[in-house]
Every structure is written in structure tokens, then in C-alpha cells.
């Protein structure tokens, strides 16, 4: 028995490290759980990217659920996420609202012209001050906000087809179930 003890210790460590690797492939170790889930989204008034004279507020977007996608032209991961949004965006069944984070409007427009624009509406937060109220600390981040303006789901990092299938779509399905009981 005593002879096998080191082997058991080794197997225990292998299991532990294996679990760690598996866990990290499923979860972003840097993702901070948002305390804003199931709380009303912060109030905001932001200019529209293509027409800065038009100011969009939280109240303007009430009534329909939408996916608020934080992105920036300087953000490398956003370039990974973008093609996924263009393919999956129309299949989500909610409006896709782009949140251009700490970006020069000209850069953002050039980036969208180059990579395509999957968004129904684009908000520009050049200073990043409003983003702090959302608890944004990088890009990309995505918030699912329901018709009453409550944040229902948040994803930190790029949305992948897997994340959309496993997490986002069920969350959207739960919203539409609430809407039509």
C-alpha cells in the first residue's frame, strides 16, 4: 500500500492539473463576473457614430431586447469576433447595437467599411466614461439587455459560435419565452 502512495499522489495531481486545463479552455480566467447581471442597465446618452448630432439614450432602446456589443478598431480580439457576428448576428433574433469604445470615429468607420457592419445601430463612447458604468474593462464585451432595460447576460471576450450556441441563444430564448407566455 505504502509503495503505491506516490502513484496515487501523482494521479491526484494529474487529475487536478487536467481539470485546470479543461476549465481554462471553457472559461476565460481573466473574466470578472459582472455584478450588474439582472440589474437595470446604467442610464446613458451617447452620440450615434455616423451622425453625432443624434443622441441615443437608454430610454430610446427600451421595448425590444438588444445585444450591446462593445468593440473598437484597435482591439485585436474584435477582429476575431467580427466575422462571427456577421454570420450569427442575423440569426440571433435581437437587435445588434454596436458600442464603439474609446475609438476615434474616423478609425471606427474605416474599420467597419473594411470588415463590414453587422450592427443595426452604432453608439460612440470616445472617452470611455459611460463604459465604466457598464463595468466594461476591455473589448470585446457583450451585454444582452431585455425590453425593460435590464442586463440579463454578459460575455467578456469574443463571442464564438460555441459561446453563442451554449450561452447567448439560450439566454435570448429565455427572454422571448417571457415575452410570450
Amino acid at each position: 500500500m505504502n509503495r503505491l502512495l506516490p502513484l496515487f499522489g501523482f494521479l491526484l495531481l494529474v487529475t487536478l492539473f487536467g481539470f485546470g486545463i479543461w476549465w481554462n479552455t471553457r472559461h476565460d480566467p481573466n473574466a470578472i463576473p459582472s455584478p450588474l447581471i439582472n440589474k437595470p442597465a446604467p442610464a446613458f446618452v451617447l452620440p450615434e457614430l455616423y451622425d453625432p448630432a443624434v443622441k441615443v439614450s437608454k430610454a430610446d432602446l427600451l421595448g425590444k431586447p438588444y445585444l450591446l456589443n462593445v468593440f473598437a478598431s484597435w482591439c485585436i480580439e474584435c477582429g476575431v469576433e467580427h466575422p462571427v457576428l456577421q454570420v450569427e448576428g442575423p440569426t440571433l433574433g435581437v437587435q445588434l447595437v454596436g458600442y464603439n469604445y474609446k475609438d476615434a470615429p474616423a478609425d471606427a468607420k474605416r474599420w467597419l467599411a473594411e470588415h463590414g457592419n453587422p450592427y443595426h445601430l452604432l453608439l460612440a463612447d470616445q472617452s470611455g466614461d459611460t463604459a465604466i458604468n457598464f463595468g466594461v474593462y476591455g473589448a470585446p464585451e457583450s451585454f444582452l439587455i431585455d425590453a425593460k432595460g435590464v442586463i440579463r447576460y454578459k460575455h467578456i471576450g469574443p463571442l464564438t459560435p460555441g459561446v453563442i450556441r451554449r450561452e447567448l441563444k439560450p439566454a435570448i430564448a429565455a427572454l422571448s419565452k417571457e415575452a410570450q407566455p
Partner: protein
Amino acid sequence: MTILFRPGGGSFSRDRRAASPSEASRPKASPSKASRLKPLPQRPLLPMLLLVLLLFGGALHAQAIEPMPFANHAQELRFQHLTAQLRCPMCQNETLADSNAPIARDLRNQIFQLMQHGQSDAQIKHYLVDRYSDFVLYDPPVKPGTWLLWFGPLLILLGGGSVVFMVVRKRHRDGIAAGITTESGTTDDRDDW
């Protein structure tokens, strides 16, 4: 940066019209003197500059991060003390005071603004926790969600301690048993892993 030129400052301030600082630090007064000292005047300056850079380079860097218009020194100290207790959400091994991440800069500015509005440290921490959860606190509060964080190490210590206790007790008992059987020479006490 002006500090750096102060060792050669005399000549620098006099020859302000000179095109570049390196030119300015070269003495121009008497040609004969200049030719006599030709290899010398430049030499002590460079090591001195390097030494000054070595000594105060860190201070220059630290100041470059945060040129904030504090009302007084007490407020600056309070700001530094507070930001050193907060974690940057982006690079989680750094404090808000140390981090150069864009979000850390934004949050420092926000904290500065809140201070100007007369908010207390507790209010500012509350503001950040509302947005970024307890993750931003290096000293998170004890509550059901953080029990594992607070008491996990104690659990591991207790677990390890009981294993050690059991092993020691077993060896002690085996030792006594071995003491009895050594005379017959049947123990294999060389076989402890």
C-alpha cells in the same frame, strides 16, 4: 527632463541660443583652452548623465504616469493609498496605482474626480464594487461568496496538518513495533518512501 541638464547647467543656460543641448554643453569661450582640454570636457559629462539617469530615472517614470492636479499633498497621499488597495480589472496582478492599462488610467481619473466631489474612500470603493464586483478589492469583505477565498487556505492547512499528524503517529507506532522486532531482524525500515 530639465533636471538632467543641470549638471552642465551653467553653460547650458548661458548658451540658450545654441541649437542643441549637446552643443550647448561644449565650452566655447577660449579656443586655446578648448584645444588643450579637448578630450576631457565631454568625458565626465556622459557618465554623470548616466548616473543621474540611473538614480532618478525611476522617479521620472513614476511622475510620467500621473500628472494629476491634486488640491494638496494630503489628497495626493490619500489617492496613492487608495489606488494601491484596488486591483486593475484588466491586468489582475497589478494595482490601479501601478497599472498602465487604459482602463486603469480611466479608473484613476474617475477616482480623482470622485475625490474632488468630496466622496470618501468607502464611497469610492462602493462605486467600483458596484461596477466591477469584489474583484477590484485586494482585501475583499468576508461574506458567503468569499468564504472559500478567506478560509480555503485554512482548510488546506488543516487537511495537510491532519495527514502529517496521521503519518507521524503511524510511524511512531511502527517505530515501537520495529523496536520490538529489530532483534529478530525482520523489519524493512529502509523501505519508507
